[in-house]
């Protein structure tokens, strides 16, 4: 009895086609998660230690961060809003 090769060219082609690249911007954002997490923790720690900074964040998050030189992603901003609201 002849065994079918486990990976003939047609199947290999099918499998290679099945995994197209994800959009580069999505991949880049995911790669930068550790840096974003570090930045997030740093901002929250500052807000806990500095009432004026916290008040500025609550009043206008994006403007307060821009004044301090932060350029957080949308996702980081969302998480920051959640953490500020929960504290």
């Amino acid at each position, binding site marked *: 009895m002849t065994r079918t*090769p*486990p*990976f*003939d*060219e047609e199947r*290999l*082609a*099918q*499998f*290679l*086609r*099945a*995994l*197209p*690249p*994800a*959009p580069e911007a*999505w*991949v880049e*954002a*995911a*790669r930068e*998660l*550790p*840096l974003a*997490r570090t930045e997030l923790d740093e901002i929250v720690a500052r807000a806990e230690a500095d009432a004026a900074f916290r008040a500025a964040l609550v009043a206008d998050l994006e403007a307060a961060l821009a004044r301090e030189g932060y350029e957080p992603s949308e*996702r980081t901003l969302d998480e920051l809003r959640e953490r500020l609201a929960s504290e």
Partner: protein
Amino acid sequence: MSLVSLPDAQLVARCRAGDQAAWAELVNRFSRYVYAIAVHAFRLSEHDAEDVFQECFARVYQNLDRLRDDQALRPWIGQLTRRLCIDRLRLASREQVTDEELEPPGVEDSLSTLDEALTVHEALAVLPENCQEILDRFFARDESYRDIGDALGLPSGTIASRISRCLSKLRSELEGRNP
């Protein structure tokens, strides 16, 4: 050993130790898999798929310490993505339905194909770079012989034979893994 050829378990260990390059490799290794599950198996819109994609990697990053078996990274990411896709579909559904009712028909077959495709992709990652490039451009990126030739500085008339040779190398690599 380069990060690309590092087994999943060792990659996880490096990520836990705070190695950012290892994390980037983990994202590279699984980004197509997560994307394909969301877009092809679950047929989510680009917007929903992007949310699932980012949420998936955020949870992986947060919960790496809780992964009990480091070799189970791939099934863990697969299950997590599937769960997030179902949650996304549930948000859009007005009726109370089971997970199975929310999943598109044929999702099990699609996931099984994607799992095999990831195995093939892992084998591709250890081939010579020119083979990775040519096979990826032709099959996954759907580029023409002419575009591939232009990008790689090769005569377009030689692309078909190069693809064939690289597929043979890929098959040998896979058969070497599963004799």
